[in-house]
């Protein structure tokens, strides 16, 4: 079909519809390395503005760490820029094996397989392991990539209410006739910042003979006493059958992800997972940087400890100001505003005050649950946090929401 004017108009109307629904995503150009202090050009062509970043997944502040950048530079010099191949033809270097081994050690599993991203890991893992006699039972707030992976798999699908263990148990009981039961959850849920109850999930898995899958992308490197992840925090190290995680957040922030877990399951992914089989190898420069990241996070807990301190300081500060927060311990701290326009307006005003945050609303979160999601980093210093709190106090006061309850905010602004 030719790309006719009619067809062009049709696609344009689709875009108009996205704009009218208030869902049009605009990129903001950052003109500096990723860090607590960044320079942003927004809107396009505007003069660069220096802002404090409270919306990156740079939890450990390692995205631009000099040792990581240097290791990447060495990797570039010694192993080249690219490999022009998938892993199983001629795309596996010694460093890929080393990184997989290091991730296995760090996560406390039996084996690990790298993917171009965790999105790819989640897209490929279920189809590689499960068939039509099996059932996947997922928490209703798992990441979008897991939903896509479940769609690509022929196993049966079911869900349980978010972190509701009674509901999960009911589902496990219902599905005792299936060959394999796989419980699927995020370790830390990306929008609410709450942690999965992995200790209870593992206990249910044992009781009802199920396997457990955890996407720990928002946890690896900093959740748990030594940063191993949600399984360490919940005291179930070595008891999770499949962990997927990313190198694109705390662990350097570049790209790449992995499936880690029971040896046979990882080997089956190596043989069958289509995103692994049919996409290029992770670039040597990223692999080299990621190995250095694991050196850093294995040597000391200083960064995750600082992140924990920053998170507490930030949560306490926002609460003292009188803002309504989602409860939790993770460095994802959602400021609840409930109304979509209010979330957008406040994010815009905070940007004007030099604080870079983003408002989230339906369909990214449930209707009436609009919020500004703030994310802490070990790269934040106390003065960053204090400036952020000042700005939230000023903007919150402007909109009259300080000290107001959910009910009062809803009465003022509606849903």
């Amino acid at each position, binding site marked *: 079909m030719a790309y006719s004017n009619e067809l062009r108009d049709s696609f344009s109307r689709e875009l108009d519809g996205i704009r009218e629904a208030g869902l049009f995503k605009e990129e903001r150009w950052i003109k500096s390395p990723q860090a607590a202090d960044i320079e942003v050009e927004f809107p396009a062509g505007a003069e660069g503005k220096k802002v404090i970043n409270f919306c990156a997944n740079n939890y450990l502040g390692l995205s631009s760490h000099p040792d990581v950048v240097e290791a990447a530079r060495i990797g570039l010099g010694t192993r080249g820029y690219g490999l022009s191949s998938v892993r199983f033809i001629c795309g596996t270097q010694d460093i890929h094996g080393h990184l997989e081994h290091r991730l296995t050690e760090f996560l406390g599993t039996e084996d690990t397989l790298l993917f171009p991203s965790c999105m790819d890991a989640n897209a490929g893992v279920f189809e590689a392991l499960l068939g039509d006699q099996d059932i996947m039972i997922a928490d209703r707030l798992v990441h*979008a990539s897991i939903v896509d992976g479940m769609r690509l798999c022929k196993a049966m699908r079911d869900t349980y209410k978010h972190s509701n263990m009674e509901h999960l148990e009911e589902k496990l009981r219902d599905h005792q006739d299936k060959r394999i039961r796989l419980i699927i959850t995020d370790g830390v849920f990306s929008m609410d910042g709450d942690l999965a109850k992995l200790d209870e999930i593992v206990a249910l898995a044992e009781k009802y003979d199920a396997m457990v899958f955890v996407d720990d992308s928002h946890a690896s490197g900093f959740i748990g006493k030594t940063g191993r992840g949600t399984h360490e925090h919940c005291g179930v190290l070595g008891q999770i059958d499949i962990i997927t995680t990313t190198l694109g957040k705390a662990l350097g922030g570049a790209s790449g992800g992995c499936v880690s877990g029971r040896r046979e399951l990882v080997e089956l992914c190596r043989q069958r997972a289509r995103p692994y089989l049919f996409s290029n190898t992770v670039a040597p420069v990223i692999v080299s940087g990621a190995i250095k990241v694991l050196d850093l996070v294995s040597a000391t807990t200083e960064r995750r400890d600082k992140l924990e301190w920053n998170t507490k300081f930030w949560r306490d500060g926002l609460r003292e100001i009188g803002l309504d927060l989602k409860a939790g311990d993770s460095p994802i701290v959602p400021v609840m505003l409930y109304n979509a326009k209010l979330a957008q307006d406040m994010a815009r005003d905070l940007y004007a005050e030099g604080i870079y945050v983003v408002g989230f609303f339906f369909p990214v979160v449930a209707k009436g649950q609009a919020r500004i999601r703030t994310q802490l980093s070990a790269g934040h210093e106390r003065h960053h946090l204090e400036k952020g709190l000042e700005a939230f106090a000023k903007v919150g006061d402007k909109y009259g929401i300080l000290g107001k309850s959910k009910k009062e905010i809803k009465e003022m602004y509606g849903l």
Partner: protein
Amino acid sequence: MSETCNIQVELPDDLEASADNLEVLRTVFQTIITLSRECGSKSNPELKAMLSDDWQVHCGLTWSASAERGKEFETATGKTKEEALAHLRQMTCLHEMDGCP
């Protein structure tokens, strides 16, 4: 389907003309017509193509179920109505899950 033929049948007094019952009747008539034309036929070009690729093909009549909500659409099939709806529910439940970035 090029043309719809209206057939009138007398229903027993105790049979309610509910949507479900009417759907059963419609499906039965459709099945009779389909079977009368297609049963045992190997002349379908798609079927021939698959057989020549060494596929063992089974083609049978099933229940089909679909669900629509705004721009979201899912469809599923099953040997029974319950099975079709169960498969459909598995698909629609994925829409109830969050899409957080």
